[in-house]
């Protein structure tokens, strides 16, 4: 396999010593790791460390007077107390959006993977295509769709699903719909990948062994799509629970999620210690949720 073995040794050159060769190959993995590791160190580890320090600054400081690192652990309980509703709301909205996305995404991924035949690639492109426009533009488009004088609200009012002055925009419904829509592809793609590998002969075998279609789904399809399901839910839930664009554009301060609070702490109120503390709390909460979830889902193939 050695590449060097095929390099003709020039007139004056001697072949590299085996020791030197194996030494170079031993280092190779680390060399390949270097760019990524350096990137992560500079743009993830260092800022994370800075953020951790900022979360412990004296809360009475300000950007103009400067901050002092006073190990103010009190920032954490304070932030949590002040923004508890936004915290729970984040996970609630992301959770509801996840359920909706699963209800839509699983059948969609299944149909594309198993039933689409020659339309498979086209349908996949349709799933991915919205990603070619910016997140912001797509969310603004939802603003139009859900607007008070839009066709959708008009229709819902006509069939009395909404009251005469009922609205969608600036309600929790709008925010959850926005989250569902924006993160759906992150759920569908991993699911598609594992459903695509599903051997339909296993379903025939299940049906030959007395499993009705529903049973065959529960006992064969679902367990075999578990890796994709777990990966998809994580890829959906993590960014959705930290999102602030949907609440900002489709909701009101009453629908604000924790992302909005962090956003305003850093960019509006300029309260760095609080913003940093909230960021860490969010991170810890997500890690806890993910950890519990992976333990329950019982798959070691994801991480």
């Amino acid at each position, binding site marked *: 396999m050695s590449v060097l073995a095929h390099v003709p040794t020039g007139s004056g050159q001697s072949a590299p010593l085996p020791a030197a060769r194996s030494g170079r190959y031993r280092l190779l993995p680390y060399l390949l790791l270097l760019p990524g590791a350096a990137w992560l160190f500079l743009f993830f580890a260092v800022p994370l460390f800075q953020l951790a320090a900022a979360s412990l600054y004296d809360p009475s400081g300000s950007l103009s007077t400067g901050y002092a690192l006073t190990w103010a652990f009190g920032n954490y309980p304070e932030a949590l107390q002040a923004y508890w509703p936004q915290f729970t709301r984040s996970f609630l909205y992301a959770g509801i959006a996840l359920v909706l996305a699963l209800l839509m995404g699983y059948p969609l991924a299944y149909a594309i993977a198993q039933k689409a035949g020659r339309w498979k690639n086209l349908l996949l492109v349709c799933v991915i295509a919205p990603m070619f426009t910016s997140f912001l533009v797509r969310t603004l488009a939802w603003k139009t769709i859900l607007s008070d004088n839009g066709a959708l609200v008009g229709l819902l009012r006509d069939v009395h699903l909404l009251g005469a002055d009922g609205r969608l925009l600036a309600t929790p419904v709008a925010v959850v719909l926005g989250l569902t829509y924006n993160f759906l592809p992150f759920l569908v793609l991993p699911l598609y990948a594992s459903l695509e590998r599903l*051997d339909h*002969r*296993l379903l*025939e*075998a*299940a*049906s*030959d*062994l*007395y*499993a*009705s279609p529903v*049973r065959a789904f529960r*006992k*064969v399809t679902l*367990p*075999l799509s578990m890796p994709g399901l777990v990966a998809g839910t994580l890829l959906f839930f993590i960014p959705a629970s930290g999102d602030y664009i949907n609440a900002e554009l489709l909701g009101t301060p009453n629908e604000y999620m924790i992302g909005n609070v962090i956003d305003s702490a850093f960019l509006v109120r300029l309260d760095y210690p609080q913003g940093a503390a909230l960021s860490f709390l969010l991170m810890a909460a997500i890690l806890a949720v993910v950890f519990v979830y992976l333990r329950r889902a019982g798959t070691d193939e994801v991480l």
Partner: protein
Amino acid sequence: MGHDAPAGDLRLANLTKRFGVFTAVDDLSLTIPQGSFFALLGASGCGKTTTLRMIAGLEEPTSGQVLLGDRDIARLRPYKRPVNTVFQSYALFPHLDIFENVAFGLRRRGIRSVGDQVERMLSLVQLDGYGRRRPAQLSGGQQQRVALARALINHPKVLLLDEPLGALDLKLRRQMQIELKRIQTEVGITFVHVTHDQEEAMTMADTVAVMNAGRIEQLGAPADMYEFPATAFVANFLGQSNLLAAEAAGAGGGEVAVSAHGGRFSVPAGRARADRGPVYLGVRPEKLHLVGSADQVPAGHQHVTGVVTDASYVGVSTQYLLRTGWGSELTVFVANSGAYGRLPVGTQAVAHWDPRHAFLLHREPGEHDRTTPVLDEPVGASS
């Protein structure tokens, strides 16, 4: 399981399956007696799998009936049929261990305590102690036995086996053939075994059906079919035959007289599928004997003369090719019993046979001799 069902013969009546304009199974009718070991033998692509899938319910017949006893099950969903399949690809559930794979059918029918039955089934297929392994951790032969156990444990009325031994190497295949036959005798379930291996079909089955292009060419006990094939296809698919193009002049005195390539021969009337017009005069290679000259031919035997063009020693026998005066090469198997010396290539020799071992088959006008040896297994026969 449990109660004995009324007569459970499996009957296919005018079963037909078309894919678009292509007819994969063509008006198939046959009866498979309850408890028998039935082999469906045919080259790749002749419709064997399609037939099995229609019995299992995985393919809907274009027309015709699948009767179990006197119930038409052709339109029942597969999970409602008392039929189980050992798939060509095994199709074991990769996410379940061996125990759960075998228990799958029982659990789906709501049977709670499956432990004893599963253990018993695993020991029947000699896989005791493998229950906690995953399918991927087993060899091909072991997976095949799991697939068998997974189907058998349900005590189906009919067990369908789709070339279950195709992926195994020769030695393991022979071993599993004996094993399968033993298990079938033990459990007494109707086995419908699909294969393209004529030796496998003949050694295992009570009844063999030879399929060709979606139709049954011939059906019967292996020995009967071998000794007296019904068509030229069967004569060369089950073993091999020397088929000489001949003209029959009708039966008389219990015999049919035929002329072929200037020679006059006769065949007992009971061994003639056709007795007038163009026929094939057939003799199996092992029914031919070789001698040096015509005066050594025993009384009552018939013979043709030729030159030895090839002699391959294959251990138990020597296989000779004898080129006749009109250019066809007859295949002759001579047992290496030590009674005869070897005939070198190039020598003049006479092949003779007892007319009671010959047979006459229908021949389309214009068809020539069929004496070239066919391959033991059809090429590309793995699907």
